[in-house]
């Protein structure tokens, strides 16, 4: 009898939570969308980005210019040149999409952040599937203005020349990391990911001195569906968080970036965004306003 009561209460609470999430969910047709083009980045780790002789944009970065200032309008062109192997890609994948335009919408209801990503699936390149389980993965990172260069490049500070799948990798298991990263000092990114395999799975972790995929307390739900060739993935995250979560406060902006692993891709073979700011009820590149 007790067990049944506990089970019923638990079920009731879960429904209530889901209900709460649903109740707060915005009318997406009323939420403004920003088109952000994610592009294929090839081999452009942060070490390459920082060297003026390799990437002349380093001169601008010294002056505090964001990547967006120079590269936003040409993101599709950059992706095309890299994916075809013209530049910065020693092993191009024939037929790989250069870029994917994504509509990003954000809103909050006082307790949760709602993020929705919508994009049209590019044609598959065919060929061997790197991640047979997951045709599509999408992840975003948030950071509270502590990680070096995150205010310019979004999640690019997690990308290094020694990561797994990079040409100079010595360790084929080395995950993304942040230089001098640690949860204790606040030098880390909050990471949320949705994978399409197995009916859809979600992960809430962080990237500090290494990437940890689970343990975050912020994620409420992540749902994705594909319809007529268009993907729509919606994340719901509590504004508050636990260890490894960035606490999101109204009136503040956070550094933000996201990536799509399209066409069963893995590792570095994703399409990434430049760095943007996410604001909670405040002016930013993407403003998650209260609905």
């Amino acid at each position, binding site marked *: 009898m007790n067990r049944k009561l506990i089970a019923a209460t638990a079920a009731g609470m879960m429904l209530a939570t889901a209900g709460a999430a649903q109740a707060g969910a915005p009318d997406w047709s009323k939420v403004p969308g920003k088109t952000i083009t994610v592009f294929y980045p090839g081999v452009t780790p942060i070490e390459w980005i*920082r*060297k*003026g*002789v*390799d990437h*002349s*944009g*380093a*001169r*601008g*970065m*010294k*002056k505090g*210019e964001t990547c967006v*200032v*120079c*590269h*936003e*309008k*040409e993101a599709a062109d950059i992706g095309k040149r890299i994916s075809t192997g013209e530049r910065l890609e020693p092993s191009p994948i024939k037929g790989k999409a250069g870029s994917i335009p994504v509509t990003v919408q954000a809103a909050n209801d006082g307790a949760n952040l709602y993020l929705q990503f919508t994009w049209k699936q590019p044609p598959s390149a065919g060929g061997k599937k790197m991640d047979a389980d997951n045709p599509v993965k999408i992840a975003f990172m948030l950071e509270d203005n502590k990680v070096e*260069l995150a205010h310019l490049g979004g999640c690019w500070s997690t990308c290094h020349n020694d990561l797994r799948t990079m040409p100079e990798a010595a360790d084929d298991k080395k995950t993304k990391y942040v230089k001098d990263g640690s949860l204790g000092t606040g030098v880390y990114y909050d990471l949320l990911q949705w994978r399409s395999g197995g009916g859809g799975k979600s992960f809430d972790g962080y990237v500090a001195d290494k990437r940890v995929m689970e343990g975050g307390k912020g994620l409420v739900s992540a749902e994705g569906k594909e319809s007529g060739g268009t993907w729509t993935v919606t994340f719901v995250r509590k504004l508050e968080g636990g260890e490894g979560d960035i606490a999101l406060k109204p009136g503040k902006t956070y550094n933000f970036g996201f990536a799509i692993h399209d066409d069963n891709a893995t590792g570095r073979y994703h399409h990434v965004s430049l760095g943007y700011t996410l604001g909670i009820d405040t002016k930013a590149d993407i403003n998650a306003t209260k609905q």
Partner: protein
Amino acid sequence: MSENFRADSLPPRGRGILRRQVAGYSLITLLVAALVGVMLWGGFNWAVEATNSLEFCISCHEMRNTVYQEWQKTIHYQNRTGVRAICSDCHVPKDWTYKMVRKIQASKELWGKLTGTIDTKEKFEAKRLTLAEHEWERMKKSDSRECRNCHTFDGMKLALQKDRSRKQHEIGLEEKKTCIDCHKGIAHQKPKGMKGDEDDDV
């Protein structure tokens, strides 16, 4: 005329005629000498200009099989407006004095040709960085004089440029950069092992 002819044995009128004849011959000689001078000078400069033609430069396979091929893939070869920069536009000064200095320096290249210093792809690649650095140094010293034959900051309408170019040129103006500081590799492949300036790193 007699061998013992002497002008002062002439009556005054005859001396006048002779003076005019000598003057005449001198004038003609001067004119002819000037004409020959012009032809020689013109010929000299024609020959120098012949060494500035694209055909002359690529008559050496060292250039034809390497940097010429690379240049053909760049904007200085083919672009929207059809304005082309050939080898001498960037590598030979237009001003006569600077041009002569460069031509004398370039005679060293004849020795290189004779001894085959870069006569294979492998030798060329091995020397690419050195050769590039020589040119960059020469351009830096002259404040990118050959670039400025065609391009000037004054002549640039930054508002018409794309975001990245505009931002880089704004920074270049602010930091008083010269063209070659940033535009290395504009017409030929960038060599491996470029050293770079730490001041440009972040």
